[in-house]
């Protein structure tokens, strides 16, 4: 099936990602050519250290590409002003939030910064968006809590609420289910899936929960040592791409149930 290119929202051209040291450049992945379309629920899968976070940080302008380029629509990402970008793309990172006395409400309200005036005064529309974001993420009851009082699962939902309040078409999340138990992990996946389905958001996330990710996402970016490919579950399966994700002696991809299973002795 030929892919429809008309609604591509993020694309990369021969992208090389990694870190620029003082003397040498550490390239983690090269020649990444992928397309992400409007309304995609895209999950990035790969082993530890394969470059998932680096990839997400590069397509969100948190760090620059080392080679090639990232495009947002037709425009090169590096050329887009941060203020304009902030109305198109919001992020949920794994960065630790410094200790402060911000309440959950204040934290979510910070997501309105691209729209507020010079002192950050909230208009009734801002309040509306904040309330909506907190309702969607089921964090209303936490409104007056300080964020350091929250559990990992609650904090993750609050951070997603902040990204939602930012009212952007694209939301990029780096391992939003890290540190979460299975119940809370599924809750996050269901929330994100609903945002894609009902709000027509484009969501890109990385996750180590491969089996859940395969089930919920409609498109997958697979990062392995040799290549970075993307496609639907079916097309990747056809390509036998899942077999390269992990060394096969421990984990295997079971085609019939479309899940990874532990290799029996």
């Amino acid at each position, binding site marked *: 099936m030929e892919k429809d290119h008309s609604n591509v929202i993020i694309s990369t051209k021969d992208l090389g990602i990694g870190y620029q040291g003082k003397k040498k450049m550490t390239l983690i992945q090269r020649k990444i050519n992928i397309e992400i379309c409007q309304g995609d629920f895209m999950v990035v899968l790969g082993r530890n250290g394969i470059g998932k976070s680096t990839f997400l940080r590069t397509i969100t302008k948190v760090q620059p590409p080392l080679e090639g380029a990232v495009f947002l629509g037709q425009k090169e990402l590096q050329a887009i002003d941060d203020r304009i970008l902030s109305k198109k793309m919001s992020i949920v990172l794994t960065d630790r939030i410094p200790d402060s006395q911000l309440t959950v409400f*204040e934290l979510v309200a910070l997501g309105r*910064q*691209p729209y507020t005036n010079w002192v950050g005064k909230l208009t009734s529309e801002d309040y509306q968006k904040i309330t909506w974001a907190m309702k969607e993420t089921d964090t209303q009851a936490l409104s007056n809590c300080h964020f350091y009082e929250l559990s990992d699962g609650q904090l993750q939902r609050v951070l997603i609420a902040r990204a939602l309040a930012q009212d952007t078409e694209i939301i990029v999340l780096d391992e939003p289910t890290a540190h979460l138990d299975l119940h809370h992990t599924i809750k996050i996946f269901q929330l994100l899936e609903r945002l894609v389905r009902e709000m027509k958001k484009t969501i890109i996330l990385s996750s180590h929960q491969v089996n859940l990710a395969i089930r919920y996402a409609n498109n997958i970016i697979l990062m392995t040592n040799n290549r970075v490919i993307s496609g639907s579950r079916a097309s990747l399966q056809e390509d036998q791409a899942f077999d390269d994700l992990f060394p096969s002696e421990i984990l295997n991809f079971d085609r019939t149930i479309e899940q990874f299973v532990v290799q029996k002795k």
Partner: protein
Amino acid sequence: MILQKKYSQQLIGMLLLVVILTLVSISLGSVSIPISEVIDILLGGQSSKSSWDFIIIHFRLPKAITAMLAGSGLAICGLLMQTLFRNPLAGPFVLGISSGASLGVALLILGASIFGGVFTSLALSKWAVVVASSFGALLVLLAVLLTAHKIRNTMSILIIGLMFGTVTAAIISVLTFFSDAQQIQQYLFWSFGSLGNLSWNEIGAFTIIYGFGISGLLFIFKPLNALLLGENYAKSMGIHIVRSRNIILLTTSLLTGVITAFTGPIAFVGLAVPHITKLIFKTSNHIVLVPAVGLLGSVVLLICDMIAQLPMSEFTLPINAVTSLLGAPVVIWLLVRKKKVYL
């Protein structure tokens, strides 16, 4: 935000406290003047003794104004540094900015006896001290900024700041070693810190530069709040990180520089007042914090000044010693009780 009303009440309360303390501080001293007379004189009326007029207009009012400006300025600088470096230990002193100011003044005053010539005539001028101090503060700040650019780890930046402080102290020791007793004494007195001795001309200049520095704050309320989530989030919310950081650092060096120049180094206020304010106001929103920290800074320095004057006596203690002696135990007590500090 939603609790705006509560905060504005607290702020008004604090403003009243500043006014009251100002009046009390003007009335106290080696000659005690009744508060009612103080109010009369300040409102332009005549008091029962003309010597009181003179004391208030030429000594105590300038001193109170200096205390308010210096206290609020240093406290706000501390708040800005703590938010920028996302580290509760940051402050004008810890980052070596005050040391830089001291170094500038030391080079000027102590250098006079070593290098002679132009230095000798300059060292006697208060304005030269002001310029030297601001320049020293700016230089250290730029050095910190450069390292901050190369090193992302904020903890390292703080340690580097401490090292700058140590190096400046060492340089000052060397300069002292080669200086005349007279110059050493002049520098020593400056380093004790003093809120008095400012003429109205100097107060005017102080206020203008202070106002200039403070006005930089108008551009950074939003960035300061966004920075509470770290630089990456702030950037993703449309904040221009480099520009905001430069405004914060410039504001800090200007304020620290001018305050240190006119009053000498004053420890503790910059580091501790933001923490005390956050414990009282329980918020991290800078729209509330900046004015609150400023007001509390004034309160603290006015109180320290009253203690330094040793009411009813002829002696005045060095203000720098009083702030530390009074402040350090307060902060330790607060933290032991609270067990956690916040940005």
